[in-house]
Every structure is written in C-alpha cells, then in structure tokens.
C-alpha cells in the first residue's frame, strides 16, 4: 500500500528573478513499512523533496498524495492539522522545546491532538522506553546528549501515531556511537512496528542501513535502488 505518492513534482525558486529548479519532475512512490534514504550531493533537492512530502512546502507543479489525501488541495490551516496527525518529523538539530522535559516534549504533540492527560502520559512513557530513555524522562534537552535528544525527537515523532516519519539528516550532528544507537532504534521500530521511515542523508551509515536508496542529482531522481541485503 502506498503511503506517499508523488507525481511530476517540480519546485522552482525565483531567487533574484533567476528561476532555480530545485526539483525537476520527481515521480516517487513510497510503500508502507519502507526504510528509505534519499541521498544526493548538497543542492540536489533532498531537503526540498522532504519538505514537500511533509507538507512544509508546496510544489510549483505536480501532485502529492499522502495515503488517500491530496495534500495540494489542503488549505494552510488544514495542512497544519494534517501534519500533526499523519506525519512525524525528526530534524537535524533535534528541535526539541528547551523548556519542557523529555516526557513533556513527547506528550506535547498529543496535547495538540487533544488527547486525554492519562493517555498522553502513558504513551509518552512507552515511547521513551522504546527509545531507551526511561531514566531520562524528567530531563530537559539541555541536560541530554545529542544522541539522547535525537531519540526524544524520534519518540515525539511517533507520539501522534503518524503514517510515516520524515527524518532530515538525523545523524548529522551525532557521533558514531550515538548515530548507530539511533539507527538501531529506528530500524527496530521499522522492523517490529512496521513504521515507515524516509530519510534525507549524506551519512553512509544511514545509507548502509536503508532498504531503499533514492539518489537525487540536480533535482531529479538519478537512481532508485532497493537493496536485498541492507546492513541491519
């Protein structure tokens, strides 16, 4: 079953009156349960593609469908609610709320979904346990290492029970051990819970662990490879 369907997506930036094609006719279909890495050199359009998939940006032309929903047709307000309920985000620089504890950060998305306090608390605890942070629940981001913060971000991304998780360079700021630990957790969630992950990355460690690698060059898909033997 397709979670993400992208057809003939173009993104043209009109910087200084000189049009720049960031995406040049992308067609992509991502199925439920995939562990996909979108790779490519800087400026190839990875982040732009991820932003468009995540509903943070709109394409100049083309069609984006998430599940059964035509994202292009959603108003800005509806798009925010759609992101809240269907997409989990993991950012390169963690982007946790600094004044909330790890537990509160995970709970926050569920608060936006207007879920009950009891349910929020219970699910946040389960998710933090799943990412191995049961002993850090009361800590604020400033009291956690980079790897721990990114694991909180993963737990937060999962909190809303999204259709898939978009991770923009999730290991870029992590050392080897923390990156490996994070990838282990995400691979486990993908394998055991069937959660769909889409990464944009430069990191060979992520590329090695991905089952599908989509390579972008100059805003177009140069290759789309499904591996039979990913490193797990």
């Amino acid at each position, binding site marked *: 079953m397709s979670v993400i369907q992208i057809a003939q997506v173009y993104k043209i930036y009109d910087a200084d009156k000189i049009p720049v094609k960031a995406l040049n006719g992308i067609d992509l279909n991502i199925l439920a349960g995939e562990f996909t890495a979108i790779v490519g050199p800087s400026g190839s359009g990875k982040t732009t593609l991820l*932003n468009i998939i*995540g509903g*943070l*940006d709109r394409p100049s032309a083309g069609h984006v469908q998430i599940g059964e929903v035509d994202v292009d047709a959603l108003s800005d*307000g509806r798009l*925010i*609610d759609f*992101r*809240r*309920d269907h997409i989990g*985000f993991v*950012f390169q620089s963690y*982007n946790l*709320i*600094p*004044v*909330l504890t790890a537990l*509160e950060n995970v*709970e*926050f*998305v569920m*608060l*936006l*979904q207007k879920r009950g306090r009891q349910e929020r608390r219970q699910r946040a605890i389960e998710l933090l346990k799943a990412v191995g942070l049961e002993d850090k629940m009361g800590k604020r981001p400033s009291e956690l290492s980079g790897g721990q913060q990114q694991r909180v971000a993963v737990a*937060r991304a999962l909190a*809303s029970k999204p259709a898939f998780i978009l991770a923009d360079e999730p290991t870029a700021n992590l050392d080897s051990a923390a990156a490996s630990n994070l990838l282990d957790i995400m691979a486990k969630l993908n394998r055991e819970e069937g959660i769909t992950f889409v990464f944009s990355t430069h990191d060979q460690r992520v590329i090695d662990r991905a089952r599908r690698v989509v390579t972008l060059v100059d805003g177009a898909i140069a290759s789309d490879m499904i591996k039979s033997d990913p490193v797990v």
Partner: protein
Amino acid sequence: MLLILAWRNIWRNPTRSLVVLGAIGMGIWAALFMTGFATGMVRGYIEGNIATVVAHIQIHHPEYEQEKEAKFSIPGVPTLLGAMEKDAGVKAWSARTLAGGMISSAKASRGVTIKGIVPGKEALTSKIKENITEGAYFESGRKFQILLGSKLAGKLKVGLRNKVVLTFQDMEGNITTGAFRISGLFTSNNSVFDETQVFVLQEDLAGLLVGGMEGFPVPVHEIAIMCADPGNVSVVQQQILKRFPGVAVKSYREIAPELELYERQINFVSLVYLVIVMLALVFGIINTMLMSVLERYRELGMLMAIGMNKARIFGMIVLETLLLTIAGAPLGVAAGALTIHYFSINPLDLSAFADSLNQYGLGTRIYFAMNPYVYSQTTALLILTAFVSALYPALRAIRLKPVEAIRKI
C-alpha cells in the same frame, strides 16, 4: 501544559523578564502613588472646605442668596432646629447670624463677612476652634469678642487684645457699628477664608442688628449642617426640603460646585495617570515579547511543523505576555497599597509650599487616599495592556513560514 510552557518560556531569559517585571511593578507603584497623592490632596481640599467653609448642607431664607440682606433671616428657626436635633442623619448644626460689612483698625479697613455664632455649636460643626493658633476660642463671660484670621490681623496691623470696629447695616437698613476686642486668631488652609471671615458671638451681633427693636427674635441667616454620613448628604437634604419647603436647602455640591468638579476630576485624573503608565509599559512589553519571538523563530517554525496551529501559537504568545504582565502587577499593587497606607497615617509634609497651597485652599499635610475601585481599574487596564502588547509579537509569530523558520540558524 500550554500554561506551563508559556510560564517557562518567560523564564528563559530571567534577567530580561525581571527587568520587565520590575518596570511593570514600578509603573503601577508610581501610578498608584500619584493617584493616592492627588486623591488625598483633593479629598483634603474638599473636606477642608466642607469643615471650614461650607459644611455639608446650608439652609437660608430663599431670597438671602441673591440679596444677602440682614432682613432675610430664616423663618421658623426653633422648629427647624428642633427637627435637626431629632434627625439621626445630622451630626451637628450651627445657626449663624450673618452680616456683610467692614472691619477697621487704626491702620486699615477691609470688607468681611461677619458670622455671629454660638461657640459650642459652631465648634461641633466647623473647624474654627481647631484652627485657633493664638489666643482663645472666645473667653467665657466677656462680651464683644472677635476671632480674626491671622492674615487679616496682619493686614489690619492688629494683634490679640487689640480693638477693631465692625460697621454694617442693621435690620432696618441703618448703618451701625460695634467695637470688638480680638480674643483669638485662626489659620485655616484657605487664605481667602482667613482674610474675609470674622467670628463674633451671636448675641452681640444680633443685638447690634436688631437695635432698638424690642422683643425681636435673634435673626438666623444660615444653618450649617454636618451629616453623620458624608455619603448621605443628598438624602438628608431631601428630607429637610420635604419638611420645610419654605427655606432654601443646598448641599455643598450646589453651594461650591467646584468641589463636585474636583470630586469627579480626581477619578478621571487617576485614570489618566494609569493610562500614561500603561502606554509606557506597552512599548516595553512589546519590545521584550518581540525579542522573545524573534529569538525563538526556528522553534516556533518547528512547533508549526509538528502541528501547532496559528491560533495556538497566537494564544501561547498572548498567554506569555499576560503572565509576564500579571506577574509584575502584585508587586506594584502591593508596594502602592503599602505606600498609600503609610502616607494615609503619616501625611506627606509640604509645609515648604504652604503659601502657594493655602492660596488655593489646599492643606500642607497630604493624607494619601485611594478609591478602592482604582485597584480593580488598575488590574483591568493591565490585562488590556497585556493584550495590546501581545498583538504585534503574536502576529509576527503566526506570519512565519515553518519551512523558512526551520532553515534559520
């Protein structure tokens, strides 16, 4: 959790928030201090005028106010005074015999209003006895004594025990004179009053007014009344009017309209002080909240990315502003209330400006006062200030585009 988030956001930069809290506290304190001072000053003026000059209510012959002639004495005085004695709303009264005339010493002459009083009754009604600064408030057993304002005595170049001559028209319109010995000098907060009013015994003045008219009752031109409850003046006035329709009964608001004007003005003045302070605070708070929003641009973008809609972002910024503003308020209100309480017991001494103040009938010792509603007015204005201050930063916050905000380093 939004409340917790908003509260914690305020304390991300404690120094900045404390500076704003301090400014809010100081601003409110200053506004309350000024209001307490102005209210105390005006109340002092009004109360001083009531106690010294006009009383709460005055009764006259209906034509006396226009003509001010001795013949227009109040009719049916014994019945009226009997009713005053029984009226629980009346705290004290003084029946005065009045005459307009001239006071002369060997050196100078002045126009004055001569008030013939019964000392015991007058002392309960006005502050004349309290205002005696030299000599005595009439000496028992002596006739033809007079009380003068110190300033008037200075202008006439007379002192205690000196004689002055009063010249005025009697009941028949004849010019009559009487020599009076100064038994006391008074000083009130009203220099005009001190220079234009003199007090003599009622029986002495009545004797001169009535002259040879044997058996004529003591003419009374004015009954000054102090009410038991100052808030009840209109009720007492209406009751007297109802019972005695043949006399003119006026409250201090009608006799001295400027007093009512001041009463009303002080409410407006306190609002003006508050609005000025709040306007100054608006800019400080907007600046702080705008800095706070711009510093969190990326974080706000992230919040929008993960599904926090614009209404909630807007609400969060408003809530932060409201909390920041309201957190500073108790400090200012408490400091203001304590200051006003202190100065309501220990008056602010402005003796250095006594001459100028007395020219305007103002006292030199200012007992601070405050209408209780000013505190609720302050709170309401502060909440309004917080909302107004929050608008621009909150609008800036919701105008951001998450994809651009997240890219910002």
